[in-house]
């Protein structure tokens, strides 16, 4: 963080405000961070905060943040209230009816929090100063499992998203499905597992729905459900992984993709498959 002058501790923000753009907070990581900053620029001791001065500057900073159209989160307001409370306590003479710690410095708890937070800030900086893998040093890559392409833009799908995708698939199939019909065909999870793995043997990845509907072919509900169970089973065995893209906001979006998991060899899931049946 830059060290602005004491009379304009938030100058970083105000200067960019002149441009009329939405302004980002001048690097404050929260109310405690802002408070630490004020303490630093006022050159006072954390353990002996001139609470009236600091509280006032703190409120000014909040006002400025609001003026700049920054979203002043509730956390900032909470600390403002705490500061006001401490300030009022400081004005009162010590209450003789309270004993021991209770009648101590009303700033004590805040001081303890600030010191603790500062400690972690320091150590965070120290960690950042290390030679970090992927930033400062890079490993010999070996011939590891193929990395998932675009891994940065994808997350593994949770069971709820998967259930939702399946529900949608079922609904899509529902109305135009064949009227109830007793079928002699028996589908087993084991057979569907093999089908899924065969589909994945030919291609890097498949779309979830594509697998369910076997590349467009009309399928029965029983088959749909069994394929779904097969996919669940394979996921549990870690033979496959389920992935979904993220939009700019980091929200999972779009079709769910299924990929073979690099780590698990074919022998392994085949073996577990035979255990299963």
């Amino acid at each position, binding site marked *: 963080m830059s060290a602005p002058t004491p009379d304009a501790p938030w100058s970083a923000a105000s200067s960019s405000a002149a441009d009329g753009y939405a302004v980002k907070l001048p690097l404050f990581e929260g109310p405690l961070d802002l408070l630490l900053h004020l303490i630093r620029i006022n050159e006072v001791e954390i353990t002996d905060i001139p609470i009236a001065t600091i509280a006032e500057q703190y409120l000014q900073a909040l006002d400025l943040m609001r003026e700049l159209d920054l979203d002043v989160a509730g956390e900032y307001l909470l600390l403002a209230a705490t500061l006001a409370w401490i300030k009022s306590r400081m004005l009162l003479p010590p209450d003789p009816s309270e004993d021991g710690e209770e009648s101590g410095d009303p700033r004590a708890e805040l001081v303890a929090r600030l010191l603790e937070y500062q400690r*972690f800030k320091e150590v965070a900086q120290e960690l950042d100063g290390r030679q*970090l893998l992927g930033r400062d040093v890079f490993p010999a890559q070996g011939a590891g499992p193929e990395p998932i392409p675009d891994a940065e833009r994808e997350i593994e799908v949770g069971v709820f998203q998967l259930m939702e995708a399946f529900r949608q698939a079922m609904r899509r199939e529902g109305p135009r499905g064949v009227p109830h019909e007793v079928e002699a065909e028996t589908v087993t999870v084991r057979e569907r597992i093999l089908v899924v793995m065969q589909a994945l043997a030919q291609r890097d990845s498949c779309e979830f729905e594509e697998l369910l509907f076997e590349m467009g072919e009309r399928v029965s509900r029983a088959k749909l459900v069994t394929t779904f169970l097969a996919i669940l089973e394979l996921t549990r065995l870690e033979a496959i992984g389920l992935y979904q893209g993220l939009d700019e906001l980091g929200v999972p979006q779009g079709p769910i993709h299924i990929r073979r998991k690099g780590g698990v060899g074919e022998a392994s899931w085949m073996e577990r498959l035979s255990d299963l049946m």
Partner: protein
Amino acid sequence: MERDQQRRIVEAIILSSPEPISAARIAEVLPRCNPSQVRTIVRDLNEEYVERHSAFEIWEVAGGFQMRSLPEFAPYLRQIQKTRPLRLSQAALETLAIIAYRQPVTRAELEQVRGVDAGAVLRSLLERDLIRVAGHREVPGRPIVYATARRFLEVFGLMKLADLPALREVADLGAGEDEEPVASDAAAPEAEVLPPDDGSEADVESEAGAAPEPAL
């Protein structure tokens, strides 16, 4: 086996290993060689690299050896890498630091220390495998607790958690820190978590012995 040949084998194994490989694992494939001898060999290799101005060195991180480029080449390598270079925000670093020293911690405890919501940061750290869910705390609500993952040690070049830089004592508060009326903090006993650490840390511990510092 000839010593020079042994050294070349160790070098080849470390070079081709996709992740840090332990001395014990290397010793398994080297006849008449124990883990501590593997360490000696690695030390010799690193000396050799320095002598001939190599562009890389062997680090010992997260319980294993890994060949890594020297930091001076980072500006070039960042441009070559397919993935975006590692970037950790201030929020991510602070949160990681708290988790590293206080683990296992709940989200509420993290938020208490930093004074801000931790949800987004936690998600991003989890996605990057730097932290993991380490179970629940057996208190009302059974909150999830977080701990650092093995990947954290790799990225930060640490052999084990105990190698973290020392957390500066709060001198001003003296030994009384725990007695300060910071109830929420003091009320965070560390031993209550159910699932203990996974095996990886245990491995790390067992090999901690005569660990040479990463290269140099």
